[in-house]
């Protein structure tokens, strides 16, 4: 027996065991059947128990490497098929000089790259404008500060200039 055959045999055995255990548990649910209770309620209870076992088995099964490998193989198969079909269609479109899906995607991607570059440049410009604004604000603040200082100085000088005039001179007696 080759390794490959042995592997397949193990997988089948694991699969078989999982589901045999599940069926055994489902059969075990029926052992709790109570003939004294209303049959409809009992049937509902049995159904609930069986579905619970089935749900648990499915969950367990969908976590097994066998299921995951099978999922991978079927998804890859479907993707390969889709690719082959598309490549075939692309060749037909090429022959008739029609745009293919790939062409459309390429155009979209090119637009996307241009958009990205423009956005990056804009962001750079945005940052530079923000920096310039900040510097202008600093200059404005400095100018305002100087303006206030000049105002204060002007007021002080004016006050000093007005002060002697306001003070009455003493009579000298001459």
């Amino acid at each position: 027996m080759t390794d490959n055959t042995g592997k397949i045999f193990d997988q089948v055995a694991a699969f078989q065991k999982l589901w045999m255990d599940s069926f055994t548990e489902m059969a075990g649910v029926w052992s709790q059947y109570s003939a004294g209770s209303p049959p409809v309620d009992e049937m509902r209870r049995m159904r609930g128990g069986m579905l619970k076992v089935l749900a648990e088995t499915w969950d367990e099964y969908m976590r097994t490497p066998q299921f995951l490998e099978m999922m991978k193989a079927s998804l890859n198969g479907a993707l390969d098929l889709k690719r082959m079909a598309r490549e075939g269609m692309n060749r037909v479109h090429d022959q008739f000089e029609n745009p293919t899906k790939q062409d459309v995607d390429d155009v979209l991607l090119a637009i996307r790259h241009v958009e990205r570059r423009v956005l990056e440049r804009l962001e750079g410009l945005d940052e530079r404008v923000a920096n310039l604004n900040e510097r202008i604000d600093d200059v404005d603040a400095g100018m305002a500060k100087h303006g206030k200082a000049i105002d204060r100085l002007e007021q002080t000088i004016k006050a000093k200039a007005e002060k002697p005039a306001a003070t009455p001179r003493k009579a000298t007696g001459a």
Partner: protein
Amino acid sequence: MDKETSNGADWETWQASFINETFANLRRLTAVPFLPDKMELVRKGITPREVVYEEDRLKVYRYIGESEPRFKTPLCLAFALVNRPYIMDLKEGRSIIAQYVKAGFDLYLIDWGTPTRAERFLTADDYVNGYMLNVVRYLRERTGSDKVNLLGYCMGGTLSTMFTAIHQDLVKNLVLLATGIDYSTREPLLNLWTDPRYFDVDKFVDTVGNVPAEFLQAAFLLLKPVSNLVEKYVNLAENVHRDEFVDDYLHMETWLNDNIPVPGEVYREWAKYLFQQNLLVKNRMPLGRHIVDLRKITCPLLNLMASNDHLVPCSQTEPLNDLVSSTDKEKIVWPAGHIGLAVSSKAQKELWPRAVEWLVKRTD
């Protein structure tokens, strides 16, 4: 003699049970023809709203309450990219939005819209640092508030967390529902299925482009096949004569079957950086020119999670509270599933008034 009496009682119980069930079945059968009419009554959202902002496919709705909002700081809701956001305003008595609007919040909801092939190259950076940032800037301008409150659900919660980590100065409070943060856990099947040994995300996205809604729908169904493909329909058959049950069922089914495709590049980033490399908790998640560092989150945080969530279990959500720098942080574990956390009647009556109160205390 005793045995005979017991047998007689058993027989009567059996007989009564069968008669009751027969009449119940008749009631069920007579209700079936009315299902299409009831289906037509299903509405996608109940609270009055208006579109206040649009960008590409995105729309921002403002929800209108009976009176003017009490709070200046707006509340912005972000939902996942895989479903429509009206689950947050599902129906009368099952609406998170209605609860916040009633409490006086100026509430806005981001509807990401349905991506077309033109959006297949959009990345998470476009959503967080593009759309979300633009929406928040717009809300600041509109309301005159410096900051916004953010509420994110599921994938929308992860986007909101990333946004807050990068733009903390714009977020006042962060509320998260069933938000995936730590993807190291193998508890949910999705985390196992996206394992790089079994799932080649590059090949997948390169081939399909935008991830089709049908693919996502099938994956969600498969997470709980017995519940989604058997139990659900058995329950419907048994309760088809109960108006309240049917109304809830039809609203939920309408929403569950209303999947939308996910932009291919976002899916690639999500699968690779989060599901496979778990970069968010390592503070190494790249987002355009930024690296998301959860330690930069300092605002008050309310983290809501569901103990029976098969999609985003508590082990995936809980670690966030230890990863942020916020001092005011709280988590609530609620006994519900991923959707029940938002819409179950118990959550609506007991959890959401608490969550609303939490935000009221922290909002101007």
